[in-house]
């Protein structure tokens, strides 16, 4: 419709954008941050409510009373595990069979791309054991999963005990309409991933595993359980899954309903719920929890084995029993009753959980912020990039107009920018990104041979080396292809970089708001400021401080600060290195996307701004 719009009025608008650009940008950025901070306050947070009819009004009476049985199972399990030093597969099989389940095992093996130093794993081979409770007279079309991930250390035996006691109790009931799968996995998340891949008969991560013998139709929901003591003071719930995916909010509501019914103390992010939302205290606590959730979601790691179920569209969450120094404690019966209640209500489901929100933020267990309310925060931040890009486009346009003809159409002037000069920096920064993605894992053996480091260290150090080398490399290249007008060169490059960044951040914010927002909040200001004039050292320092790696580093500090366990710089550095290794590993073992996203998308984009800064 450009033909019909009034050019005079458009020019006026353009002039306004150009003249007020800086204040508009600042305003927009501040509005974005302020909006985000305001999310924890009542008009923007709402109370959660159960949307699913099938789980709402129906009353359930919990009858689980197998506390002693659970403890006995747990003791036996722990003893057998200590004796064999691994998951006591035969014992589990026998016990599951004795409580009346259909038992199967699955063996899997995986060679990690490089040794995992935090979990002390490299060549992994284990066995998952699962028992299926077949719903009477049903055709095994739907199922629910209760899973306990068992790591290499001897934790979680109480969870296995409770799982077996619950299985025994569930087996005697007539009302089940869906099959229930009781799954005990070895090597916690690796086992879960192997089982899920085999269940869905896909191979996403290069896991070698034996095919499953028994299946139970489409899995509707899953609950992962982690318990390491006979008594618990509180139950912590984790929702953040792989790549920041979240389960349907109704599942969390369900958990909360049974927390309230059983009088259990339930926490989110390991923190108690703020009670008083009318004064300033509650929302401030809520903000703290909101930030914790944003950091956890942005990391894209599965926080518990439930996180891996989400990829297969299985709503899942992890319950963790916490045993702290609080006076009042609950025994396994209370936890078992909550689980029984949840499973009975999930058993009532007619459709998959779909009624409630899939995209939300939680400032407390009973409060949430829906996507419609938190998206503007990211929108305002991205608007800065848009405004800056508009300004650059107009400047380029006017410069072009000035050169060629006094009253031309807007089309041809863009060619005057010299797009050829942009090809080299773009290609080089993308190549750096590719190197960052491929080389550390590929060259770990070479590095380990030539330098006195282990493979895992080699990967991390190569990662950092390539990252730093990227800073030195590209800004020297433009001289070769430099064009006639130096100013227009960097402006065009910055324009492209701004649009590239805005697109990437927009896409990320849509799928994983937390990550998108964190990156936007850090990268946007310096991206908008970057130019090859003024005090370059200041700009360079700013740019380095807001690079993706620095954001990760800062996030670690913020994370520990919010958890009230502040880090020293040295600890922080160690944690940072570990986080890098974990990030790469999780990409290879579970398919987490944060590492490729940063290395192939945001790092090259950030290099472009670095390039702009050192344009000559």
């Amino acid at each position, binding site marked *: 419709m450009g033909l019909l719009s009034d050019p005079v009025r458009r020019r006026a608008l353009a002039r306004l954008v150009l003249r007020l650009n800086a204040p508009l940008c600042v305003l927009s950025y501040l509005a974005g941050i302020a909006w985000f901070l305001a999310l924890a306050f009542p008009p923007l947070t709402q109370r959660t409510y159960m949307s699913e009819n099938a789980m709402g009004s129906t009353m359930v009476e919990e009858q689980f009373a197998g506390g002693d049985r659970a403890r006995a199972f747990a003791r036996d399990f722990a003893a057998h595990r200590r004796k064999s030093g691994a998951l006591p597969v035969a014992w589990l099989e026998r016990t599951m069979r004795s409580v009346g389940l259909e038992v199967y095992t699955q063996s899997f093996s995986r060679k990690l791309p490089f040794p995992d130093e935090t979990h002390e794993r490299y060549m992994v081979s284990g066995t998952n054991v699962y028992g299926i409770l077949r719903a009477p007279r049903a055709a*095994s*079309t739907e199922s629910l999963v209760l899973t306990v991930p068992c790591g290499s250390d001897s934790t979680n035996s109480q969870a296995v005990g409770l799982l077996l006691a619950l299985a025994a109790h569930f087996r005697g009931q007539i009302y089940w309409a869906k099959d229930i799968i009781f799954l005990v996995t070895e090597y916690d998340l690796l086992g879960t991933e192997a089982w899920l891949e085999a269940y869905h008969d896909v191979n996403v991560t290069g896991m070698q595993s034996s095919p499953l013998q028994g299946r139970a139709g489409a899995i509707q929901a899953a609950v992962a359980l982690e318990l390491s003591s006979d008594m618990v003071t509180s139950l912590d719930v984790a929702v953040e899954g792989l790549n920041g995916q979240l389960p349907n909010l109704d599942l969390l509501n369900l958990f909360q309903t049974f927390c309230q019914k059983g009088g259990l103390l339930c926490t989110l992010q390991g923190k108690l719920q703020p009670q008083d939302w009318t004064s300033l205290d509650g929302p401030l606590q809520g903000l703290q929890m909101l930030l914790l959730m944003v950091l956890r979601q942005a990391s894209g790691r599965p926080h518990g084995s439930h996180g891996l179920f989400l990829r297969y569209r299985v709503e899942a969450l992890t319950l963790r029993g916490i045993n702290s120094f609080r006076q009042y404690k609950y025994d396994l019966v209370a936890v078992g009753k909550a689980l029984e209640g949840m499973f009975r209500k999930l058993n009532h489901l007619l459709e998959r959980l779909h009624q409630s929100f899939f995209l939300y933020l939680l400032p407390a267990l009973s409060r949430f912020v829906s996507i419609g309310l938190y998206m503007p925060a990211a929108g305002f931040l991205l608007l800065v990039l848009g405004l800056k890009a508009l300004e650059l486009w107009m400047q380029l346009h006017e410069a072009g107009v000035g050169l060629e003809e006094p009253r031309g159409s807007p089309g041809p002037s863009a060619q005057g920018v010299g797009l050829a000069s942009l090809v080299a920096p773009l290609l080089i920064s993308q190549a750096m990104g590719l190197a960052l993605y491929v080389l550390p894992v590929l060259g770990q053996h070479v590095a380990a041979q030539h330098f006195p480091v282990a493979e895992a260290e080699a990967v991390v150090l190569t990662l950092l080396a390539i990252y730093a080398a990227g800073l030195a490399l590209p800004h020297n290249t433009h001289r070769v292809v430099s064009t006639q007008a130096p100013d227009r060169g960097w402006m065009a490059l910055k324009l492209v970089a701004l649009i590239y960044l805005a697109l990437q951040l927009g896409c990320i914010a849509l799928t994983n708001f937390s990550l998108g927002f964190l990156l936007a909040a850090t990268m946007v200001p310096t991206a908008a400021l970057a130019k090859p004039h003024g005090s370059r050292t200041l700009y360079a320092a700013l740019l380095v401080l807001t690079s993706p790696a620095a954001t990760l580093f800062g996030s670690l500090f913020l994370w520990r600060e919010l958890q009230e366990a502040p880090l020293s710089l040295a600890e922080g550095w160690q944690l940072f290195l570990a986080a890098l290794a974990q990030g790469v590993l999780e990409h290879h073992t579970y398919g987490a996307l944060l590492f490729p996203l940063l290395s192939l998308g945001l790092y090259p984009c950030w290099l472009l701004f670095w390039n702009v800064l050192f344009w000559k």
Partner: protein
Amino acid sequence: MAAAMPLALFVLQLLGPGGWCLAEPQRDSLREELVITPLPSGDVAATFQFRTRWDSELQREGDTDHYFLRYAVLPREVVCTENLTPWKKLLPCSSKAGLSVLLKADRLFHTSYHSQAVHIRPVCRNARCTSISWELRQTLSVVFDAFITGQGKKDWSLFRMFSRTLTEPCPLASESRVYVDITNYNQDNETLEVNPPPTTTYQDVILGTRKTYAIYDLLDTATINNSRNLNIQLKWKRPAENEFPPVPFLHAQRYVSGYGLQKGELSTLLYNTHPYRAFPVLLLDTVPWYLRLYVHTLTITSKGKDNKPSYIHYQPAQDRLQPHLLEMLIQLPANSVTKVSIQFERALLKWTEYTPDPNHGFYVSPSVLSALVPSMVAAKPVDWEESPLFNSLFPVSDGSNYFVRLYTEPLLVNLPTPDFSMPYNVICLTCTVVAVCYGSFYNLLTRTFHIEEPRTGGLAKRLANLIRRIRGVPLL
């Protein structure tokens, strides 16, 4: 729901009169029997069979024309009490006398397995088949679960199973018997004790294994004793350790693989556990049209090698008219697992075509496997009229193998589903888009362009033009 019969379980058989009914049947007869099979796991299976035959006036023209064979499935439906009541009404003695007094709904649905069937077929009345009778065969199989119904105990009696005992035979029945499987699982000694002790036993080869049955004939007055009821009790002599019934030679499993809402794969695993005999299986798959099958992705592998089916019949689906039909004859090697998989794409339905509960998923009917399974023990051909009814559930063709038809589990597949709570938003968005498009197009089409001369002359020029117009001279 009430009228919808679960067709998956009510198999209507319209077979020709050839088959295995050679002897002349009796006129208007009823035979009823109950087979009780205790399993070492502690569960117990009970199968009722009622066969009614009558000389009918139903017309039949020539042989069954195979072009008119129909197969239909409603995988969504589950059998419940409302299916049992009309089924019971078909019995000559209803549930008043004979074996059918045991058919108490609340017990039959307190089981872990329930299957109900009706078979109808014509049978020849004489060797030359000049006139026919009709046969109505009703079967009901249930499995009582030691964990749910038995509360952990493995000893059963008729009363514990059905909360009834047998008191009298159905007066219309020509045969009314209870068979109890007392086959020894261990060779050394008896494992199962039956009370009251049976008067006669019966031995036969069922599903390829030799079985021994204790027989209680209700028409025999001695069976129903002085207290005028028969309560058969089963007692395991030794506490049966957790041993499993032998795995059947042919079994199958079906599942959907893949994730996401675009593509998927239907996989069927066919197990042949026979140690040394291979046998062919006829696999019949009907898949709804909204799963668009990619036939070129059909792969059949057994023991890691490609298995080429000896016969394939494929009839592609037509949208909204007919489902895919895929029929294959596959040779299953001995002691192997054969995987049949085919990829599909999930179609997007019209918004009125979704069921009221679209997020539940859409059902895909079970595959049907038909096979002649080789038996371990050679069975002698028997006279169908003389032998028990359960014998003909798995008919033996030539003594070395028996016929089995298996149904795999139905599948639940999620299709891409629109958010049905969104119509309002959709309407708003559509209206906005239409308004914007319409406005600008209207603008584009109706606006006219003229070149406006800058007004320079002012009043004098206008006056001059006025005069010129009057004079008919071109304007300035």
